[in-house]
């Protein structure tokens, strides 16, 4: 018999009949390669399990505590940097107004009045424009289009809320 079937039997760990086992035994005696194949398989099968040193889970607990502390510190550092950057940005935006505070009271009172008038007139203009737009659009759009628009708006709000909830959720332990 040729070498090939024996190698296949050994590699595939094929269940063998008594006759096949005898044939394999005879072949292995004369074939160094198949003998090595058989021997290495036996050794692999008899291999022992290595175990860690005592106190593995206690060391794991300590490592987990360290990792949690490091994560906590990293998160705190992130929040601090975010707040710092935000404060800096706000100061940068508000710098002209803050500088105006140091000018004479007359100047900043005039500035405040100017901004107040601007705010009120802008608000009035936006409200007027909105009212006109709503009146025009209400006449222009059929009721089913309103239904679709409101449903879409509700859908987007829901997706947005879920996204916020998912991103802000802190995993509890795991």
């Amino acid at each position: 018999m040729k070498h090939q079937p024996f190698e296949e039997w050994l590699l595939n760990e094929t269940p063998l009949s008594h006759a096949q086992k005898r044939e394999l035994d005879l072949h292995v005696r004369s074939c160094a390669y198949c003998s090595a194949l058989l021997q290495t398989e036996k050794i692999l099968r008899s291999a022992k399990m290595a175990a860690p040193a005592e106190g593995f889970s206690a060391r794991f607990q300590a490592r987990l505590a360290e990792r949690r502390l490091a994560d906590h510190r990293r998160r705190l550092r992130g929040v601090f940097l975010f707040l710092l950057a935000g404060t800096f940005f706000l100061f940068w935006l508000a710098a002209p107004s803050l500088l105006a505070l140091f000018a004479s009271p007359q100047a900043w009172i005039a500035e405040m009045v100017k901004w107040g008038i601007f705010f009120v007139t802008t608000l009035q203009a936006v409200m007027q424009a909105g009212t006109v737009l709503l009146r025009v659009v209400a006449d222009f759009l059929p009721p089913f289009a309103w239904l679709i628009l409101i449903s879409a708006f509700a859908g987007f709000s829901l997706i947005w809320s879920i996204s916020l909830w998912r991103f802000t959720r802190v995993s509890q332990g795991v």
Partner: protein
Amino acid sequence: MTDEKTWVLQAQQGSDEAFTQLVETYQKPVYNLCYRMLGEPELAEDAAQETFLRAYQGLHRYDTSRPFGTWILSIAAHYCIDTLRRKKFALFSMDAETDDGATFEMPDASALDPETESVRREQRDRLHLFLKKLETTDRAAVILRYWYDFSEVEIANALNLTVSAVKSRLHRARRALAGMWQEEPAPARPERRAYETPAF
């Protein structure tokens, strides 16, 4: 429901005690896999600890329909493969074969035949030295097959391979091991004369 499933569910709800039970149960298989892959007790300890940390952090992604053992061994195998690839480090000193990770072991005097036991140990050490020469994924496949009795399907799931790829990797690894076994002769054992004491 089995204890293991209960622990997994409790751990998923944030119970550290339940996760510790899982660590206690799987520390030996995970450590053994890391040790066989990396070859050094210190590296194996580090990899096993990292495996459990990753499992802890990813427990919410664990599919409870899969056996936990397969899942955690898969994490360990991937971690070891990545480590070996990253470091191009394949040191595998298998002179340590003891259960406590020590680097020296006396032959078992209580065994029926200490000399036979010693020969077997030498053979195992020799084969394990050859194991380090295998490609990392092939090595992982061999370890999962022979130390954990994983089926080809389980190995495929653990290593993200197809079943046919696992089969061909196992065949290739077995052929390579047999080839090395043939080519590299075993170190000669000093012969002891019948009247000589073992001390000499």
